[in-house]
């Protein structure tokens, strides 16, 4: 996304090593032979793995998506060296944006260390020659699955979300044809009926992830399977959010400072998840927690955002906007969690 003049260079493998390996290329006798060749695998690959036409195509899609907030823009999604549904859309978007000056972070369900996240990070590091990090505040491009980081994103950062299902309306109608017509005419009454029936049945809206949200008062958007907790972070943020779906070949975007409003009734307001406990590692009460069952069979609550949890474990009072000049930056649910603070406050008194 920064210095793009280097994009046409191939990977830094020299010709000399290339020739050496071709000369010694005989029938491999063991695993070690195969492994030694794998280092030369980058020769012949373009910078950032994708060819320049693909990257331009993706960037065109990204630009169009930014100009039409929340609208699903088709793009020519390519075959990737991993199965569709494993983040192929996100990878294509990230690799099209990355330049050598970028710092890249990959999160999978809040964790930097899952196999999928580590492999995507390594692919970018090997092919695009970028710095990688697990620290949210240091990254310029963050690819993520199912979460928006707990630390406030800035106007220097782009969050690329991997999207399995692009259309929020598919919950209520399986026909993409009919749904495209609905989007074209901003006809979302069927979604509203589904929410109405949800409240009738459960007395509240029971959508845990992929909570449908109106973008810029125009398009209904599926914000990918982020928890409700993260949905409000999309509203009026400083950063750019890109949503990329490889299997469905669609890109959509929430540009900085765009209104994103989760659908809800006037008298049944949008609710985020509430937790009765704090993180067992860092003690946070203002982060999204998940249940973790340890080897001892005991189920505890832990921060889902592993990198922020680590920081909090060292500095328990670290705020989500600690890296910014301003204080009390709005970012997701109220900080700290009013329900939990009320309860502890009540006990103390």
């Amino acid at each position: 996304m920064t210095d793009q003049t280097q994009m046409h260079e191939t990977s830094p493998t020299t010709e000399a090593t290339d020739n050496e390996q071709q000369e010694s290329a005989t029938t491999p006798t063991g695993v070690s032979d195969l492994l030694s060749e794998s280092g030369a695998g980058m020769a012949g690959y373009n910078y950032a793995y994708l060819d320049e036409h693909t990257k331009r195509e993706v960037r065109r899609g990204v630009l169009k998506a930014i100009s039409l907030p929340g609208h699903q823009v088709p793009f020519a999604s390519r075959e990737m060296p991993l199965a569709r549904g494993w983040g192929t859309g996100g990878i294509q978007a990230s690799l099209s944006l990355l330049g050598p000056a970028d710092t890249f972070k990959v999160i999978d369900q809040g964790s930097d260390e899952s196999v999928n996240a580590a492999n995507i990070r390594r692919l970018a590091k090997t092919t695009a020659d970028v710095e990688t990090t697990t620290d949210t505040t240091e990254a310029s491009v963050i690819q993520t699955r199912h979460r928006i980081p707990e630390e406030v994103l800035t106007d220097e950062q782009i969050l690329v979300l991997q999207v399995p299902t692009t259309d929020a309306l598919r919950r209520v109608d399986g026909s993409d044809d009919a749904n495209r017509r609905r989007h074209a005419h901003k006809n979302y009454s069927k979604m509203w009926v589904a929410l109405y029936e949800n409240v009738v049945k459960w007395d509240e809206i029971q959508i845990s992830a992929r909570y449908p949200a109106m973008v810029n008062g125009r398009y209904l958007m599926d914000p990918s399977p982020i928890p409700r907790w993260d949905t409000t972070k999309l509203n009026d943020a400083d950063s750019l959010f890109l949503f990329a779906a490889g299997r469905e070949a669609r890109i959509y975007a929430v540009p900085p400072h765009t209104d994103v409003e989760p659908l809800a009734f006037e008298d049944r307001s949008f609710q985020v998840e509430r937790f009765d406990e704090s993180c067992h590692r860092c003690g946070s009460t203002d982060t999204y927690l998940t249940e973790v069952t340890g080897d001892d069979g005991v189920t505890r609550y832990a921060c889902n955002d592993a990198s922020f949890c680590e920081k909090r474990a060292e500095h328990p009072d670290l705020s989500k906007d600690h890296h910014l000049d301003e204080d009390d930056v709005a970012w997701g649910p109220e900080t700290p969690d009013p329900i939990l603070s009320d309860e502890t406050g009540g006990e103390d008194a």
Partner: protein
Amino acid sequence: MSLLDAENVTRFYGEFEPCGDCVDLTGPTHGRNQCPDCGTVVGCADVDLDVERGEVLGIVGESGSGKSSLAEMLALDLAATAGNVEFASYDGNLLDANYEERVDLRNTNVGMVHQHVRDGLNLEFTGGGNVAESLLAAGWRNFDEIRARVRDLFEETEVPVDRMDDPTDTYSGGMQRRVQIAKAIANDPELVILDEPTTGLDVSVQARVLDMFRRIQREQDVATIVVSHDLGVVRLLADRTVVMRHGRVIESGLTDRVMEDPQREYTQTLINSVI
């Protein structure tokens, strides 16, 4: 000005380019509605009618006489081939309204009760959800208000309120018809169009649905167009009646006059053939 004033409403069907003489070569005088030159089927042609506020207009005719085509065009469900329709809440020719204007008009000004339940209701939704869809589409966003309005409409149309949260496909035919009426009148439209409101219902349920609708129509003074092949339905509901055959209006007048003193031979046959 009357609520709705239609002139020269025409609809062609068929895969051939109309030859230009289709209207002249069809109709009651020729005893056919398919053009012998080009094969175009003239669904209806040159239909003029008007509806006053609070008035009920009946359209009768045998199958294929063009009455449903006419009703669908007036209910904004079907594109017209030609014609001009003035409607009080719309500026210009109603038949030229674009998709978005049609959606708006259908949400707030024109209610339609379809002959086939599936055209009017989503059977997977609850009965209440179907009625709520009209309100939600018109911009209602307060759950308790929507709920209260749906309950009122269920009481109004005599559907058991206890069943409002059951899926619509578990409802009886009569209840489904009532839910369609509830949905059609949810946003207090100026005009309701009933397409064969009693088809497929047994006689006692027919009578109760008609009674219910007649009461609502009088209480709310909503203008209505009733399309039916059943003269009994039209006699019960309509102030004025038009008789259609081969896509043309062949007779019109006060319902009592048309029923008691039919002028056209076809109308006389139609009335005499009531079993």
